[in-house]
């Protein structure tokens, strides 16, 4: 206990000395997120300083082993770092699908050579990864994917199309699901493979979304040659890796509601609807929506904390991340409906400087994907019904 208290004190003073003040403010826009990668650019000097200091300390991923560039912290210590960062509002120094998705899968299923080859470049922010999962005809029914990987000597030759590939046009490498046995049952012929996005035969095409942004791409593979040694796990057993990774993805998405949270909703609403002589919002129905939302948000936060503690105690159900993904994403959509209502007509401006190029409505529209990406809300409920409640049927 006293060791942990010492660690907490040291962490606090290190963060205090090393986290630039600018990096303690809520993020104002997408460009405040640092994703790393070959072509990465820092949006500000404090962002660079903060990233490099955290990288050098191993704290871009505090709980990964030191040999891969992590901090080598145990779960208790990592929790303390998160708490102390939260306490000063410190931003994540590096956001990446390598950290939140591929890394955990590599640590679990990868060979030592693969871990050494890929993990240090993730923690150092050198390589930016994207996820090749969904296809035009394999959305919720992901396992029916058809991108082919034909065996040719020491290589696989990959042909097909992915869709909704987040930031594929900015990514350096892809972790990708491909069909390596077309004759097997749909879950049994899939492999999980890694390759460079600059490989011959890879093209990407951004998809314009309702927000006016293009975070997703269509990604095409035309005879892309990839060494067989790039398969993670066993050939044709990629579905195991895919599912394991999805649990991490869902955990990440369930927390989106908390990312870059700015001023409290009550204050935001007070700006537009005003308050009465007792300080209550003039719009009683909006006030009620906000407080009900904040009750659910606080409860979800407690549930997230409890999920960590249950996992530590060996009492968590592996499918519980689906429950959290469902609730977290539906809650985040509610938050933005409230923000839009609170903002009224001001929140409808799409291009003005005043509205920071329509930041709020665009973010509102972005949240509508939360309950679709990484498994729809309906798929999550189906997983809970079958795997946790053990209800009958397909």
């Amino acid at each position, binding site marked *: 206990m006293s060791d942990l208290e010492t660690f907490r004190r040291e962490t606090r003073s290190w963060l205090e000395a090393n986290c630039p003040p600018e990096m303690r403010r809520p993020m104002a826009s997408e460009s405040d997120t640092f994703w790393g990668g070959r072509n990465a650019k820092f949006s500000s000097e404090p962002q660079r300083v903060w990233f490099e200091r955290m990288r050098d300390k191993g704290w871009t991923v505090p709980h990964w082993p030191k040999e891969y560039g992590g901090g080598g912290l145990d779960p208790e210590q990592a929790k303390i770092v998160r708490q102390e960062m939260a306490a000063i509002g410190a931003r994540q120094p590096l956001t990446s699908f390598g950290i939140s998705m591929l890394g955990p899968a590599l640590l679990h299923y990868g060979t030592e050579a693969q871990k050494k080859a890929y993990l240090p470049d993730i923690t150092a922010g050198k390589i930016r990864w994207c996820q090749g999962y969904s296809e035009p005809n394999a959305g919720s029914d992901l396992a029916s994917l058809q991108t082919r990987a034909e065996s040719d000597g020491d290589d696989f030759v990959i042909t097909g199309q992915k869709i909704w590939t987040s930031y594929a046009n900015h990514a350096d490498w892809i972790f990708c699901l491909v069909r390596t046995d077309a004759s097997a049952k749909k879950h049994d012929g899939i492999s999980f493979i890694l390759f460079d996005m600059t490989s011959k035969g890879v093209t990407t095409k951004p998809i314009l979304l309702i927000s006016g942004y293009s975070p997703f791409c269509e990604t095409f593979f035309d005879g892309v040659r990839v060494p067989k040694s790039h398969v993670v796990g066993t050939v044709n057993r990629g579905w195991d890796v895919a599912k394991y990774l999805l649990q991490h993805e869902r955990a990440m998405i369930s927390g989106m509601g*908390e990312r870059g949270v700015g001023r409290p*909703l009550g204050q935001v609403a007070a700006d537009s609807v005003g308050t009465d002589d007792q*300080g209550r919002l003039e719009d009683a129905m909006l006030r009620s929506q906000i407080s009900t939302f904040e009750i659910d948000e606080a409860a979800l936060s407690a549930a997230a*904390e*409890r999920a960590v503690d*249950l996992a530590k105690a060996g009492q968590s159900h592996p499918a519980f991340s689906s429950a959290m993904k469902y609730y977290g994403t539906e809650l985040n959509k509610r938050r933005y409906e409230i923000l839009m209502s609170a903002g009224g007509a001001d929140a409808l401006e799409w291009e003005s400087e005043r509205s920071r190029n329509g930041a709020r409505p665009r973010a509102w529209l972005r949240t509508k994907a939360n309950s679709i990406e990484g498994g729809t809300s309906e798929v999550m409920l189906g997983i809970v019904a079958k795997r946790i409640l053990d209800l009958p049927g397909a």
Partner: protein
Amino acid sequence: MAGLDPAIHVFVSEKQDVDARHKAGHDEIIQFSRLLNIGILSMALVLTEEQSMLRDSARGLISDKAPVSHLRQLRDGKDATGFSRELWKTFAEMGFAGLLIPENFGGSGLGCVEAGVVMEEIGRTLMPSPFLSTAVLAASALTRGGSEAQKAAHLPKISNGSLLAAFAIDEGAKHRPLQTKLQAVRSGNGFKLSGAKAFVVDGHTADLLIVAARSAGAAGERNGLTLFLVDPKAKGIAIERTAMVDSHNAARIEFANVEVNADQVLGEVDQGGALLEGLLNVGRGAVASEMVGLSEEVFGRTVIYLKERKQFGKLIGEFQALQHRAAELYIDIEITRAAVLKALQTLDGDFEKAGAAVAVAKARAGATATRAVQEGVQMHGGMGMTDQFDIGFFMKRARVCQELFGDANYHADQLARMKNY
């Protein structure tokens, strides 16, 4: 410490894997807290081994001695007491009555988390019991607000089960503690109390009443409230037992110039508002726990029914319309359970600052229980509407628990006030 020593746990039930959480956790869960804004309280948000043993012990006793049929019998027999005194004696012998009472007054000196553990088990079978009014509220009131003489006079008797108490706060149809109008007028060395209380849980069996009165100021003000320890047999008190929808105990109590001495004041004259709010928070946390137990029990029974009942040649649990609703309810209950445990831990760790966490817990638990019982009845179809089936008892109790110490709307409003909007 009677009964809480592991060796005396005669009723410890077999450990059940009720949540099917038998598999080792995955570290993906670790990520939740990185992305969510978690609290700084360092206690783990799970029960300790000792708390789990307490739960098993309470569950064993309650499921054995007081299943739902116990409540049904009391109701059908129009029992004058409304609970089993014999069972309360057993409860006391096992150490439950003195759970929150310091050891030097014959209790075990445990906290709100432990009280919540017992309340949750009570919620599973709807056992009518003086536990809430006597062992939780009165014990907390005396422990936190009582003089040494008051503690010595009452706490040992609560611990050994020989004294029953009731907490008389509400006056109108809705919980509005600051609206207290019952007048305490100075008279000689003490006060005279005049007014009326309603929805006094266990009011008709109490040996001791804890009464909130207005000794100064106007209705709506926090200042000017005083708590009194009142003998229900005192001259000027009229108690009417009110049969409630849930077949649990409540009473209306009228006070007509009831004389009380200065030494019957609990805490400080005119300054009882903060003590009262703290005690209400303990009660809210306890009732929220009861609603978690109630919700989980109704849900468990409903899921079993979904796996047994056949229509259209299928188990009704195969229908996606029901699967998704069951899954949503499961998620709701799990999230509420975490919020309630958080509130109880906060009450134990930082009592003065627990208001927001308690408001969240009571509001969530009320909404979740309401949803659970409605889905429970609906998914049981016509059977759910019959008196013969137990589900209706849960629906009735959930409605009462919602109202006790403020419903979900009340606490949503309180939270907004705390956050200044």
